[in-house]
C-alpha cells in the first residue's frame, strides 16, 4: 500500500457507514454533493450531547443549560474561524442553505428592493437560489436577470457585466455548481457587483467541503453554508452576513430568542445573531457540526481539494478511455469547466439517467440521477437530467474503477 492509500484507509475507518454491502456489493458512495457521510467524531458528539448535556440554551440558570450554551456558541466561533468572519455574531445558524437564502430574500429584499430594481442570478443556480428571488421580485415588482453560461459550464462574464447596472440591488450566485461542478470566479463577480453598489450573496453549499473560504479577503456580503454537505449533521445551515448589513435588516421570523422586550404595544429585537434565530435552534446538530469542521480543518482543505482533483481526473480520464473504445458519443460529460470541484455529470447514449442510476445501484454504487434541482440548466443543455458522480475525501481511485467498469458494462449491454 502506498502512503496515500494508507492515509485514505485511516480516513475511511472514521466513517462507519462506508463499510457495508449494498445489493451484495461493497458500497461505493458517490452521492456526496447531495450529502456527505459523517465521521465518528460527529456521530459520537450527537450521542454525547443527548446522553450528557441536553438542555435548552441561552436562558437557563442551571448547569446543563450553561454547558449546552457554551458548546453551541463554540460552534459559532469555529464557523467564524472556518470562513474568517470578523466576529462570531456575523454567523447565523439556520436549518440549511435554503433557509439562509430565503432569509436574505425575505429581509434584504423586503427592505431594499423596489419596483424596477434588478436581481441577478445565474443559469446554474439550484432551485433554492432561484425561487426565493422569483418570489420577492414578484412581490416587489423587481426584475430577475440571469447570467448565461458557456457550453462547458462556465459563466458568461461578458454578459454578466452587461446585465449589471445601477438598478442591480442583489447578485446571488453559486460558488460551486452542484450539477456541473464549476467553480465560479466569485472574486470577479463580487468586485463587479460592488462597483455598481449591489450586494452579493454567495451560495457556498457545494463549496464548503472543497474550497478554503475567506469572506473578508473576498469581500463577501452574504454567504450560505450547509453542515450536511460538510460532513456534519443535517438540519443545520449557516448564513454569514457583514455586521452592518445584518443589523440593517428587519427580522425574518418572530418568536422566542429574537426579542429584547415584548409588550402588546410593541416589541424590540435582539442583537445579531439572535435577531435571526427565532425559536429553539437545532442545538444538538449545531454542537456536532463543530466536530465536522474540526475534521475538515485537520485534514486541511488544500489537501482535501488536491486529493479530490486526483479522483476527478481519474474519472474523467477513464471516461475518455471508454470513448476511445465505444465511440466519442457513447458517453457525454456535462460540465467540463477548467476549474471544478469533484463533481461530474454524464449521460450514456440511449440510456435514461434513471435506468443508469438503478443499474449502478445494483452494483452497490450510489450516484444521483435527475435534474439535480437545476431544471433551467437542464433545459439549457436540452436534456431531462444527468447521472452525477460526486466524490469526497474518503473515496478511492479503486472505487472509481468500479464505477468505470460498470459504465462500460452498461454501454456494452
Amino acid at each position, binding site marked *: 500500500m502506498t502512503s496515500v492509500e494508507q492515509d485514505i484507509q485511516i480516513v475511511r475507518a472514521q466513517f462507519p457507514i462506508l463499510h457495508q454491502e449494498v*445489493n*451484495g456489493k461493497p458500497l461505493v458512495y458517490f452521492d456526496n454533493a447531495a450529502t456527505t457521510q459523517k465521521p465518528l467524531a460527529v456521530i459520537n458528539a450527537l450521542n454525547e450531547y443527548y446522553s450528557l448535556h441536553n438542555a435548552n440554551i441561552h436562558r437557563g440558570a442551571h448547569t446543563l443549560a450553561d454547558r449546552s450554551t457554551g458548546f453551541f456558541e463554540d460552534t459559532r466561533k469555529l464557523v467564524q474561524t472556518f470562513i474568517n468572519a470578523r466576529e462570531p455574531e456575523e454567523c447565523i445558524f439556520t436549518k440549511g442553505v435554503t433557509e439562509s437564502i430565503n432569509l436574505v430574500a425575505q429581509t434584504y429584499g423586503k427592505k431594499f428592493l423596489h419596483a424596477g430594481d434588478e436581481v441577478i442570478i445565474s443559469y446554474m443556480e439550484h432551485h433554492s437560489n432561484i425561487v426565493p428571488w422569483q418570489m420577492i421580485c414578484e412581490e416587489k415588482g423587481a426584475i430577475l436577470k440571469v447570467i448565461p453560461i458557456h457550453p462547458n459550464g462556465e459563466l458568461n462574464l461578458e454578459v454578466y457585466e452587461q446585465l449589471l447596472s445601477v438598478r442591480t440591488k442583489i447578485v446571488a450566485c453559486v460558488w460551486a455548481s452542484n450539477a456541473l461542478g464549476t467553480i465560479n470566479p466569485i472574486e470577479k463577480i463580487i468586485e463587479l457587483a460592488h462597483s455598481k453598489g449591489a450586494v452579493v450573496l454567495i451560495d457556498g453549499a457545494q463549496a464548503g467541503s472543497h474550497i478554503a473560504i475567506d469572506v473578508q479577503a473576498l469581500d463577501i456580503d452574504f454567504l450560505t453554508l450547509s453542515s450536511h454537505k460538510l460532513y456534519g449533521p443535517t438540519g443545520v445551515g449557516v448564513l454569514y452576513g457583514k455586521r452592518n448589513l445584518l443589523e440593517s435588516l428587519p427580522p425574518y421570523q418572530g418568536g422566542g430568542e429574537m426579542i429584547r422586550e415584548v409588550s402588546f404595544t410593541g416589541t424590540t429585537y435582539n442583537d445579531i445573531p439572535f435577531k435571526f434565530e427565532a425559536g429553539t435552534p437545532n442545538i444538538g446538530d449545531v454542537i456536532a457540526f463543530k466536530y465536522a469542521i474540526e475534521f475538515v480543518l485537520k485534514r486541511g482543505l488544500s489537501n482535501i481539494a488536491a486529493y479530490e482533483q486526483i479522483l476527478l481526473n481519474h474519472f474523467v480520464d477513464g471516461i475518455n478511455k471508454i470513448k476511445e473504445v465505444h465511440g466519442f458519443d457513447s458517453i457525454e460529460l456535462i460540465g467540463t469547466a477548467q476549474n471544478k470541484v469533484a463533481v461530474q455529470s454524464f449521460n450514456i447514449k440511449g*440510456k*435514461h*439517467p*434513471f*435506468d443508469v442510476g*438503478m*443499474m449502478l*445501484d*445494483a*452494483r452497490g454504487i450510489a450516484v444521483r*440521477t*435527475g*435534474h439535480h434541482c437545476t431544471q433551467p440548466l437542464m433545459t439549457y443543455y436540452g436534456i*431531462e*437530467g444527468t447521472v452525477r458522480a460526486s466524490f469526497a475525501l474518503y473515496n478511492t481511485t479503486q472505487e472509481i474503477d468500479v464505477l468505470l467498469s460498470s459504465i462500460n458494462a452498461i454501454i456494452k*449491454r
Partner: protein
Amino acid sequence: MQLLRDKFKKVKMTSSEIQDEIVDDFSLFEDDMESKLFYLMDLGKKLTAMPLEHQSDEYIVKGCQSKVWLFPVFEDGKLYFEADSNTEITKGLVSLLIKVWGGKTPEEIMATELYFIEKIGMSRMIGSQRSNGFSSMIKQIKMYAFALLNK
C-alpha cells in the same frame, strides 16, 4: 388496440394468480438485483407498442424522473391499457402491472392488493419518491376503476 385486447381475453388467471406467477419468475434471480433489472428491461421491450398519438400530455402520468403514458379503454365490462415509459426499468414494471390488471373488471382491480412489486424487490418504485411515474400510474388505474364502479 384490438391485438392487445385479444391477448388479454385469452388470460383466464386472476390478478392474484398472475402476481404469484411473476413473483415465481423473479425468485430465480434470488438477490441478484442486476439480473432482475436486466430481466425487467427485457420485459419492457416486449410491451406492446403504444400508438404515438396516445403518447400525448393528456395521457401522461408524471414523475419527476420517469414518465409513464397510460391510455385506458373500457370494453365489455373490462379495462384494457396501452402504456409506455421513457425509462426502461419503469417500462418493465409497467408491463407487469398491465399483465396483472389488463383485461380485468373494475371490481377485480379495486379488490386487488398489489404485492408483487415488493416481493420482487422493487418496493422503492412505489415508495414516497415523487420521482417515479410508476407509483402515480398505480393510483391512476385505481382511479379509473373507481370511477367506473361508481358510474
